[in-house]
């Protein structure tokens, strides 16, 4: 820590902390991310049928993030363009997705009998003005 502080501009690019408890700085995050995304794409391609929406969804997200990681060198730029937190958080998310794939493979939620339809019920009643609204982004 002190070394970084006193060497000043020499190592100023190095991040000291993520500011998040339990989440350590990964100096080579870009390479780690590219590796994880490649692995995700490969596992998804091997294990999940092509017509499954889950596979399309994962491929869409992962391909975009992989493209950004390959185009940008700087961690700051990657974080800005993906917009889902710091590179260390992106690593966490990629690991999560990798852990999820076996669960999806096991229970196959996309397999439904013919003509199966999820019932959607919409309540059109307006929200009273005095109730504070939670708006998801």
């Amino acid at each position, binding site marked *: 820590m002190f070394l970084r502080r006193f060497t000043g501009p020499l190592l100023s690019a190095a991040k000291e902390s993520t500011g998040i408890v339990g989440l350590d700085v990964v100096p080579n995050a870009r390479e780690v991310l590219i590796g994880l995304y490649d692995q995700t794409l490969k596992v998804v391609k091997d294990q999940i049928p092509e017509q499954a929406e*889950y596979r399309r969804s994962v491929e869409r997200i992962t391909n975009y993030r992989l493209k950004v990681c390959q185009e940008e060198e700087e961690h700051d730029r990657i974080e800005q363009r993906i917009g889902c937190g710091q590179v260390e958080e992106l690593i966490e998310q990629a690991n999560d997705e990798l852990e999820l794939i076996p669960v999806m493979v096991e229970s196959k939620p996309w397999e439904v009998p013919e003509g199966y339809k*999820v019932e959607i019920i919409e309540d059109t009643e307006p929200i009273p003005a005095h109730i504070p609204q939670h708006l998801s982004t």
Partner: protein
Amino acid sequence: MAQNTAYIQSLISIAPRWITQLRVSKNEIVIYTKPEFVYALLTFFKKHTSTQYKVLVDICAVDYPSKEHRFEVVYNLLSVLYNSRIRIKTNVDEITPIRSVSDLYPSAGWYEREAWDLFGVYFSNHSDLRRILTDYGFEGHPLRKDFPLSGYTEVRYDDSEKRVVSEKIELSQEFRFFDCTSPWEDQANQLFIKPKKV
């Protein structure tokens, strides 16, 4: 609603088997699922990149004695990253176990104990499913609709034994005879006697 439509559609197309019904009311999404899919569905919501519901805010249960599967178990999730909340509901009866999510969300441990204690909803695979709110040796599940308001036992201090004793509740009363005739009736008859004509 408009902001949620695309999200709802993608959820349904990703996991149609897990979702039996989906309700949207006042900008809140409620997903109904079968008890055997709860664990997988919560895993999906926690780990998928575009959901990231990392916080399990609460698990609670509701008792509807008229339904075949009388207990409705409700999971409230929060995604800090996307500033989004979602509610997952499932229906079970007294003997169907639900797979515990306490290894997925550590906060679920106590919530599941609470649901077990107060409603008797059984969670399988839970590491330590004990009572959490009621007293040692308590019998029954006090938030069930068929649990009597007074409970089955009462606790009092016994002066002769110099200790607190717990005994079966006693609700017997002395026999009382209720005389249902109105005290005003006789007088009323007398009051309205027509005066004799002179």
